[in-house]
């Protein structure tokens, strides 16, 4: 990925052109895993989650040119959430007729609730979104970081190794390990904040 990613606004505008495969690929890369994870977190099996994700993509493809998301409070992300939520609702409604499980009923009730009950769902969606942004931030930040520094960060923050272990492994002072970790973390945070601002 040598090209810099499209800004959100540009991407959304470009999505209105159904033949803009670059824009659609990027959209898929950015939002596909997020929708998938969100739906899985509601208790769907892999195959159902993938189907539902495709359904969401279809709806986005059909409706994006109407710029509905501009009217929705919270912009595109909130709009995407509404679409996904509706698809989940339909899914559980169908399941309910076939023979609901305990989880289905709980989920269904949650989806049916509007304001208050939906908060939890919305919160989950936001977490997935930030996770998604972080994954993009990693892509952007990693090339800018010296590899030893990145390793120190990865081993401590991601793999959960202690600073002492990492310092032995990478042959660096343990204080440097802490500094490395905090520096990468801070850079990632700045990037996520930037992406967030762009998305809004």
């Amino acid at each position, binding site marked *: 990925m040598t090209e810099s990613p499209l800004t959100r606004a540009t991407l959304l505008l470009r999505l209105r052109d*159904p033949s803009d495969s670059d824009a659609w690929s990027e959209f898929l890369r950015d939002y596909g895993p997020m929708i998938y994870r969100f739906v899985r977190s509601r208790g769907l099996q892999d195959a159902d989650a993938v189907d539902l*994700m495709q359904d969401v993509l279809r709806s986005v493809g059909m409706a994006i040119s109407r710029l509905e998301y501009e009217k929705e409070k919270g912009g595109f992300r909130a709009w995407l959430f509404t679409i996904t939520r509706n698809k989940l609702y*339909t899914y559980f409604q169908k399941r309910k007729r*076939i023979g609901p499980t305990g989880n289905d009923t709980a989920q269904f009730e949650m989806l049916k609730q509007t304001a208050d009950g939906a908060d939890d769902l919305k919160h989950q969606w936001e977490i997935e979104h930030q996770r998604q942004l*972080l*994954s993009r931030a990693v892509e952007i930040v990693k090339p800018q970081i010296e590899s030893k520094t990145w390793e120190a960060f990865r081993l401590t923050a991601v793999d959960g190794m202690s600073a002492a272990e990492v310092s032995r492994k990478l042959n660096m002072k343990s204080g440097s390990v802490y500094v490395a970790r905090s520096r990468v973390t801070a850079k990632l945070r700045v990037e996520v*904040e930037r992406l967030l601002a762009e998305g809004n």
Partner: protein
Amino acid sequence: MPVASICPDQKTLTQLIEGALPDADLKRWTDHLGDCGNCQAAIQTIATGAIEIDRYVGELVSIDPPDESSYWQVVKELEIDLKTSAERPAFADTQARSGERDAERPSDEQKRDLSASSTSDFPFLEPSSDPAFIGQLHHFLIARVIGRGGMGIVLEAFDTHLQRNVAIKVLNPQIQQNEIARQRFCREGRAAAAISHEHVVSMHHVAKANEGEIAYLVMQLIEGETLENRMKEGRPLPAKEVARIGMQIAAGLSAAHSREMVHRDIKPANILIEAETERVKLTDFGLARATDDIKLTKTGMVAGTPLYMAPEQAMGGTTDERSDLFSMGAVMYEMATGISPFQAASAVGVMKKIMDEMPTPPHLINSEITKPLSGLIMALIAKEPEDRPESSASIATVLAGLVSEFGPISPLQVPAVTAHEAKKLSGNHQMGNQQMVDRRKMVAWTGGVIVIVALVIAGIVWALQLAQSKSQNDDFPSVLLAGNPGTVWSVDFSADGQDIAAAIEDGSVRLWNIETQTVTKRFNAHRGAVWMVKFHPTRPIVATCGDDSRVKLWDSSSFELLKEWHAENTVRGIAFSPNGKRIIAGDREGVIHVYDIDSGKELATASQSGSILAIDYSSDGKLIATAGSDKIVRVWDAQSLNERQTMSGHDGPIYNVRFADSGAMLATVGWNKNIRIWNAETGSEIYQLDGSDGDVWGVAFCVDGQHLVTGGQDAAARVFDLADGSVIATLRGHESAVHNIALDTDRGRIATCSRDGTIRVWDLSRLQH
């Protein structure tokens, strides 16, 4: 090494993160950090900020769906599709959902963007000289990919020869390479081409693979969505829609079944719903056979989920028309309930259910579904073929009754059934009995649930009565002869009433057999449009005239050219004298020609102002009437061609003129809703008839001059009662202007032909009583 014992402040830690400290400080605080737990926590807190970066970072490993998830396969497919198509085939079947169509349609510009990237993905395409198209296949310009299926790819194309849009199905390479499958593909394609029906996608052409070429099918292009797409929300459709769509599926099947063709793969994805009209169109007739060869040899079992497959099919036994009925029942069940009747987690599970289980009757799941409709659906999915209803045509008829239970339905949605069925439908008493027999058989499977049987029969009888009382005057069934290559300007019945000759815009004449709905003969008759075709009153001769100024006589069995005359200009109207010795023609220069059929001599000519658009002989052969662009109706002495009457009143061009079967009554029709009846002897106007919507093109008297039939711009034909000028029937079904009308007096039928390229034969015998 001295380690600072005092902790750095927030500012210092921030600078440490940002790399803004001088080297000495950097070293000092870094060393401090190695030993100070407080500062280790503090610096990370500063780095993280309000967002829980730490928490997410810890989960980074699991951010993507797991490797074994089908997510990756789907994303890969989506990306391939995105790169190869203008409209993202993955989403393509949703393109026509109402209201979203325009937004979804790619602009020419978008199509152009695509052209560069896509040609290479379809090696069988030659580059197109027009950048608006992806490529070219013979004389077809390929505009876009409509969809992909197991069998191949479907393309939207423009036929440069016939100047129309078509759909092209190109076999996938697996099938192309399998000789048996390819031959079967072509054979089934040809068989499907014989079906001409409003609820079947017309097959235009089968391109057999020559050396180094590919096999493909050229079909009618349907703008719309699949039933699969319409049902994808998993919700039941409205009950009326279930019955209407079912009725039209059954009607489409009956067209194939009457030719002993079996579809074999009726499923929601093969049922198209036209966007504008909501009409159902079946596609892929018989093609399942071609793919079966591949799937069986490839994997040893039938691929995909056999959700709609009949038990005998799932077992690998012989399939026939009744297997299609089962599949249709399964599809209707899903429409009625939102659930596929034999749904299971695996293909094997589905098959097991198909073999062993009966689903809950639809009316118990969805209270909107009436018991008769539910009963019919359950009868269709009976395990044993012999327990299913008798024929698709009878089901279409029963469903037509059920549809009307849910309220009025547009006559446009009442399908044409086979010629045989149309007769049955319009005859009154016979039909009831016939239906009862079928119904009883149909519900026999319920195994003595007498209440249901009684209810069903009562329901049907009631529905039929309702249908009859309500639609006494409209909803006449018609036999559809579709797929003519352009506007049909005129039609005529053969003397025995079995055939219809059609004069077509592209210069050809087609002979249709009404019973089989097939074209038995076609030939090029004129350069430019053929304007009229007429059977000789007694001899085996057909006359035609056209844009090329010629009047031609043809042998009506061999269609060899017998005689030919050359008029001054385009000939729009011809008529045989009642004794059959002469033929008259009127041309655009306003010249009347009288020709002797035997000698071939031109006996007389006369001219008038304006163009002649129509001409006719009176029933006794003594008078000739002409009408045309100068808004005047003229009556001439047939022998001398002296002008006897001129009659004014039309406020625009007159498109047609016709004498009554006896007497001097004359009807003219034309621009701006004009329908006028005249007395040719006295030159006086008798009536003006109202009731038409727009220009009127065709006219004919019937039932000994008691009724007048007209056809016009509003795509309808109307039957007027001349006793009081009232409209007693409106015949709807054509999609565009009706241009001409022919009568088959002996059998009480009329034929209408239209700009929509179709001919409809209507049985109006009940109006004669």
